[in-house]
């Protein structure tokens, strides 16, 4: 079934970010995103992405291009690329998770979530609060209580760093 497709001209899509930058990519690259694929199947070639900012979109297009050219031989190359891709700040990772979720790119979504989970798994609750920008809504008494109840789990060392 591939024979007829190769002769056709490459179809292109235009993606528009939340800050109004436009990017032209090949359809075959874009359809790795389920959200884009659904729009393509409905006949759209211009895809506005009001939830994805340019900064994240550039990274995600890089990712999609790289992964669209996956073959047996460049496995290592892609692994290196992925490793570099997630080597960034927590805020960037959250931005990317948000975008990957909106675009429904599950392999990227899983990779990002796994990365974040790996990076926060040894953190202290205080560090996690800062990383996630969460206010502690326990009263000091409540927190002391839950810590006491949790004494066993709090054994060992916590990582207080924020990177």
């Amino acid at each position, binding site marked *: *079934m591939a024979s007829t*497709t190769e002769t056709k001209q490459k179809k292109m899509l235009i993606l528009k970010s939340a800050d109004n930058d436009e990017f032209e990519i090949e359809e075959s690259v874009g359809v790795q995103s389920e959200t884009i*694929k659904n729009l393509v199947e409905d006949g759209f070639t211009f895809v506005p992405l009001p939830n994805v900012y340019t900064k994240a979109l550039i990274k995600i297009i890089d990712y999609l291009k790289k992964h669209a050219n996956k073959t047996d031989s460049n496995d290592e190359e892609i692994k290196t690329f992925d490793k570099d891709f997630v080597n960034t700040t927590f805020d960037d990772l*959250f931005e990317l998770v948000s975008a990957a979720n909106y675009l429904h790119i599950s392999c990227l979504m899983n990779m990002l979530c796994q990365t974040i989970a790996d990076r926060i798994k*040894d953190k202290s609750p205080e560090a996690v*609060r800062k990383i996630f920008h*969460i206010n502690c809504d*326990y009263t000091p008494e409540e927190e002391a209580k839950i*810590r006491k109840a949790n004494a066993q789990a709090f054994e060992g060392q916590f990582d207080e760093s924020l990177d």
Partner: protein
Amino acid sequence: MVLATHMDPKIWSRLPEDVLEYLLSFLPLKTFLKLRSTCKHFKTLLFSPPFISKHSPSSSSSSSNSQNSSPFFFIFTCFPHPQFPRQYPLFDTVHHNWRNLSLCVSPVLPSSSSVLLSSSNGLLCFTRPSSNSFTVTNVLARSSRPDFVYDSLVHSWSQFGGFDLILNENHHQEGVFHDGHLYFITPEPYFVVCMDLNTGEWKRSNFELPTELTFARLVSDGDKKLYLISGNGSNGISRSMKLWELDGNSRFLEGLGIGFQNALRCLINGAVDSDGFLCSQAIRLCLIVTSIGLKGETSVLLRSLTDSLVFVP
């Protein structure tokens, strides 16, 4: 401990709650317990049903309290959550809700690559890729009959010899019974294979399939007819979906309605990338499609091919 006061909880507005929940489900349970003192929300998440069922190894008895309301039927998903390979969500059609069942099937299923093929009334049928054989497991009794197929006409188990390696190991679709044979459709390149339930012989059927398929699912109406639901297009992009009747030469019956197409497409799209599944079961040509979405949410679609679309959330 000084309360953080200057922090704007902007992350909550950027990261939807279900995304955060999904993200946190990647954490080991121990870490998650440690982190429950982070904030009340985290603690609430810990005690939310999805977390308990995901992390609890012994939550399998949830089905027992519904036993008195027989008959209860389960539709098992064909593929468990990628992170929790021994968790099988199941749909209780009596109570119209989802339950989680964690199966202690490891002694029964030697290989972690055993794939759930089909289910019926609490019996699960797995394939064992290494030996190309089936295992039937009774989840309630925790017993299993490897390599046997039960013949309900003569009430006996028959053992079939080794199966030819016709279906590859990535095969997630359950077989469809039609005319004494169990039919399967292979992943690309698509062709239909069947096993004769009397002789246990596999053969490749001579059904001519339409060209330019993007996905293909078999549905049977029980015994008389075999249907194919297909996506048609190229490059893996479905431009339309069609229903075919398979006999000597496949006959085009109808293009499926837009509403049904969209629903089916969402389900299939969700299924392809996340190694999910789409299981169809024919009950008088009523199609049941179940799906686990990207974030672990589940949806069921029930559709009689003649009636309008019904969604069960």
